[in-house]
């Protein structure tokens, strides 16, 4: 397959215009680490945006970073870390889960709207993107947003790029908010709770003023035989000490222990990057986003019927589910049991992703609106055709 790798915005415009003239659908990609997410596509050429990798601006005291959409997330993480900052939404490194060599690019991070355990406090990539520049499927360069946090000038097109999987525009530049890293952290681990009790305990913790910044639960099967519920506290040490005592008094469990800063960080990286279900064991992996109190109920409803492994993040609002590929990775059963929210098939082989809707099917009016939004950027469907929705013939 042809690979097009523009080095400048002008080249990118030319390439998209050429593709339009020749009706060549393009596979819009950074470094391809998340290619396995979405429906399989029939494209004639790859549009490789990894050349846009320059860090144009990083001003720690302004809490802002502007970089090429092809800049590597791993590199940017290091850059921010050197100044005691980070992306507060904790973008995961899904390379182990997806079998990729590294965690990909900033453009991919935005296009997949990545977020980690701190989602319940700090939001996702969509909450931290400030501005974008790129080329639409019409072959026109455009920009939107800016480099300041507070901005309501015009429609929030940068947010629209989040979770668009490269179907709207080929991005060249992204501007994100950076935030100070917490000075220290600690995790209270409750032992032996059932899923239902864990979700109740996490809800209680989130309703307290303890400022819990991560609430996850590993059932016993994924935690060496004893279920573990993790509650993370971040901040300055005197504050953590106070909140830890308060939290411990609020919650009861048969046992508990604490993870100090380093162990706590390592634990949350493992949860963030879905390590408990990342083994290349042939299982398909679903990501279910539901109201937090619904997570355990959903699992209880599915458990008797499916051979599955699972764990919870976001106080129960995010369920990671690994299932055998048979029966369309149980897509129908999972979606039928879903009380709200959505189920996304994050890991499955290509043929399965061609048979089963990877993304939650939408109500007709919403699906039609989404198609019109796609057409407003890419009227002939030149960018990643069919990746999110089956194209109507």
């Amino acid at each position: 397959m042809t690979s097009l790798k523009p080095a400048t915005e002008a080249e990118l415009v030319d390439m998209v215009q050429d593709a339009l003239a020749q009706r060549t659908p393009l596979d819009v990609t950074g470094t391809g680490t998340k290619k396995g997410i979405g429906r399989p596509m029939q494209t004639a050429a790859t549009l490789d945006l990894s050349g846009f990798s320059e860090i144009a601006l990083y001003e720690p005291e302004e809490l802002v970073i502007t970089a090429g959409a092809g800049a590597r997330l791993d590199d940017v993480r290091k850059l921010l870390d050197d100044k005691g900052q980070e992306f507060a939404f904790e973008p995961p490194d899904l390379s182990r889960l997806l079998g990729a060599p590294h965690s990909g690019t900033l453009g991919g991070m935005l296009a997949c709207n990545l977020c980690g355990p701190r989602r319940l406090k700090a939001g996702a990539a969509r909450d931290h993107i400030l501005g974008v520049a790129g080329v639409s499927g019409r072959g026109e360069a455009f920009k939107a947003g800016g480099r300041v946090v507070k901005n309501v000038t015009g429609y929030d097109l940068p947010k629209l790029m989040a979770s668009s999987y490269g179907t709207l525009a080929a991005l060249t530049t992204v501007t994100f908010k950076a935030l100070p890293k917490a000075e220290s952290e600690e995790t209270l681990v409750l032992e032996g709770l059932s899923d239902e009790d864990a979700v109740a305990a996490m809800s209680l913790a989130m309703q307290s003023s303890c400022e819990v910044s991560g609430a996850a639960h590993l059932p016993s099967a994924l935690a060496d035989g004893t279920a573990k519920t993790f509650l993370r506290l971040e901040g300055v040490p005197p504050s953590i000490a106070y909140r830890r005592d308060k939290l411990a008094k609020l919650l009861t469990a048969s046992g508990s222990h604490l993870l100090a800063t380093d162990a706590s960080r390592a634990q949350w990286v493992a949860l963030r990057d879905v390590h408990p279900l990342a083994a290349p064991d042939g299982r398909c992996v679903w990501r279910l986003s539901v109201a937090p109190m619904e997570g355990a109920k959903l699992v209880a409803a599915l458990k008797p019927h499916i051979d599955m492994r699972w764990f919870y993040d976001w106080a129960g609002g995010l369920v990671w589910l690994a299932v055998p590929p048979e029966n369309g990775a149980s897509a129908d059963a999972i979606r039928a049991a879903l009380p709200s929210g959505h189920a996304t098939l994050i890991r499955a082989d290509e043929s399965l992703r061609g048979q089963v809707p990877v993304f939650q099917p939408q109500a007709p009016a919403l699906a039609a609106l989404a198609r019109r939004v796609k057409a407003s950027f890419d009227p002939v469907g030149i960018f990643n055709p069919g990746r999110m929705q089956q194209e109507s013939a």
Partner: protein
Amino acid sequence: MVAMPLPDKTALARRREIAAALRQFVPGEGVIEAPVEMRAYETDGLTAYRQMPLVVVLPETTAQVSAVLKYCHEQNIKVVPRGAGTSLSGGALPLADGVLLGLGKFNRILDIDYANRCVVTQPGVTNLAITQAVQHKGFYYAPDPSSQIACTIGGNVAENSGGVHCLKYGLTANNVLGIEMVLITGEVIRLGGKHLDSEAYDLLGVMTGSEGLLGVVTEVTVRILQKPETARAVLIGFPSNEDAGKCVADVISAGIIPGGMEMMDRPAIHAAEEFVHAGYPLEAEALLIIELDGCAAEIDHLIERVVTIAEANRSNSCRVSQSEDERLVFWAGRKAAFPAVGRISPDYLCMDGTIPRRRLPEVLQGMEDLSRHYGLRVANVFHAGDGNLHPLILFDANDPDELERAEKFGADILRLCVKVGGVLTGEHGVGIEKRDLMPEMFSEADLNQQQRLKCAFDAKGLLNPGKVFPVLHRCAELGRMVVRGGKLPHADLPRF
């Protein structure tokens, strides 16, 4: 003055017929056409602009909103949605040939769900009412625009409202989980819900801040937070704006994100002090209010560090609030800054640019120069943490020349904001006020892409036209593709 599109004479002539048709969907007092009763809707928070609507309709249910919009869509009648009408940018200004769709009767909170930490509400509920409904359990809704007593949550969604605490807690967009909305075609669409993550295109994100141009919000799900255990404020005076600006940068560089960080310049300090007697230092050129919230142990720890940073930046006065009452007094001056300025001038224009913080001294200097040039005074309050400036231009509206000068002065300030890397509006919206300045920030291609998105929601351009975009293009014209070399693929080609 910004000019509105010329009204459609056919629509004007059909007023009686349109009102009668709307009565079929919204019974009784829900349709208003008597001029004396419509007067209440003729303006919003941008009071220099006034316009009587064609007719006012106040539906009570989503089905009614849907029927009204469907009718207007079929009949090609323009619609202006309205919450409480507190917009400072003219977003809710009626159109002479348009139906004004008021959401005031959507005034009920539908579901309070502490376990999932969210509230489902109708859009006409005020911002503050949400907090009031949950505060007995220690919860609150974080975004707190100054107009929070009056402004509605539906309006907050339309404008992506902020407030003094958004540096730490985010804007409306970061605190809304889901909405129900009605398109101009009458189709009802739900986005998000009680779950945190919404899949596929972030239409919820696009709706937030879309200024009533894309759809009418009929239900909102917001997240609620447990109130911090306590909060304390530090009041710090500086001998110059530069010193105060440097202090703000140093606080953030030290990894501290305060709950609020507000700055006032000398004219604003004096106006506020004369009004509320908060004990502001009158000798200071710039004043910072830095509020830290959380548990007591954390606040004590951080206040010490903030005070040290302030001293290193030549602060010449520093008071730490010793009680909740004192904290509220510190804030009273800032919160009353607009009415305080209103006392020293017959009228004022409130601007709303955002700049990269470190450019503050040169922007303030630029404003001083402009102030001399236009012969008008200006006072500044500033959400220092996130770079959002609110210059208040003082003038007398009875003097038409002063109004014109004030508008020009304001436009020049916003041009200056854009020039230093900032934006035209941080939280008040473009509306009509900043509509004609949009090309200062965006190219024609940028604006066309935004309008194409509008076409995806509202192909006939019937929802709130004349706002946000300086030039209205027809969707067919915007959809046309020109590809180099004369090879023109048609927009209606089948997909690959």
